[in-house]
């Protein structure tokens, strides 16, 4: 199953619902372009919902880091929502759990962003 991503706006936050596989190739490229497009539109508050991600590899983790850095460098915030157990474990193993602001409640995640 390849990756699918849909975007919806909640208040001033762009919520990206991701499903499927974030792996080297199509999945990573799609996520990179999506974040780049949002930044180009001036949307600097991004909440990535990983609840339906079935598989993420080292390249997918790298793409999340890349997205985090890109948004942060433009003065924005990128946060993660609804980690599956597998993604949670991977972020802990790689020590990235402390880098990302991670939420399991969308409303609380949305309200945690700095107000525009």
């Amino acid at each position: 199953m390849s990756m699918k991503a849909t975007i919806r706006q909640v208040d001033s936050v762009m919520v990206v619902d991701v499903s499927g596989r974030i792996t080297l190739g199509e999945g990573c490229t799609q996520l990179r372009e999506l974040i780049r497009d949002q930044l180009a539109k001036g949307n600097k508050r991004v909440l990535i919902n990983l609840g339906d991600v079935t598989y993420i590899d080292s390249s997918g983790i790298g793409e999340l880091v890349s997205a985090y850095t890109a948004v942060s460098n433009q003065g924005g915030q990128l946060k993660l929502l609804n980690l599956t157990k597998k993604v949670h474990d991977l972020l802990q193993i790689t020590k990235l759990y402390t880098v990302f602001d991670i939420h399991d409640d969308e409303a609380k995640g949305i309200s945690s962003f700095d107000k525009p």
Partner: protein
Amino acid sequence: MTSEPSVVEVTLESDLKNVEVAEEIVRRVAARAGFGEKTQHQIEMAVHESMINAIWHGNKNDASKSVWLRFEISKDRLEIRIRDQGNGFNIDEVPDPRSSENLLKVSGRGIFLIRTFMDEFHVEHLAGSGTEVTLIKRIDPAHQPKQGGTDREHEGHNSTS
């Protein structure tokens, strides 16, 4: 139960689409070896990362090249060997992705994950013929593998595109 090892060998075209083929095979092999679901997933991830290394870094995504895999279930271990036709890498030069200077780097976590998920990881440079990595996961004696005996399967995959 026989003590004869169970072996699966497969040669895949060097195409990223075949990463999922390798995952499918290792899922079956790891289940047959008697590993639990979490360990099965870890072994699958280790093979996934090894396949990416072989196809992307080793064979430079050249579809005319191939990747050879061998899975062997024995009494106390699952041994996986993956061979590409590339120039290899020096495992001693692979940095720790968890160190503060590497934490926000985009790449460099694949080998670390393989080492984390497997009990042993070895890299061997084959003179003039590529690089072979060996991944070993020990089998807990309390969970003996469901071995099929002396069968030896050979699967040949050509183009999957």
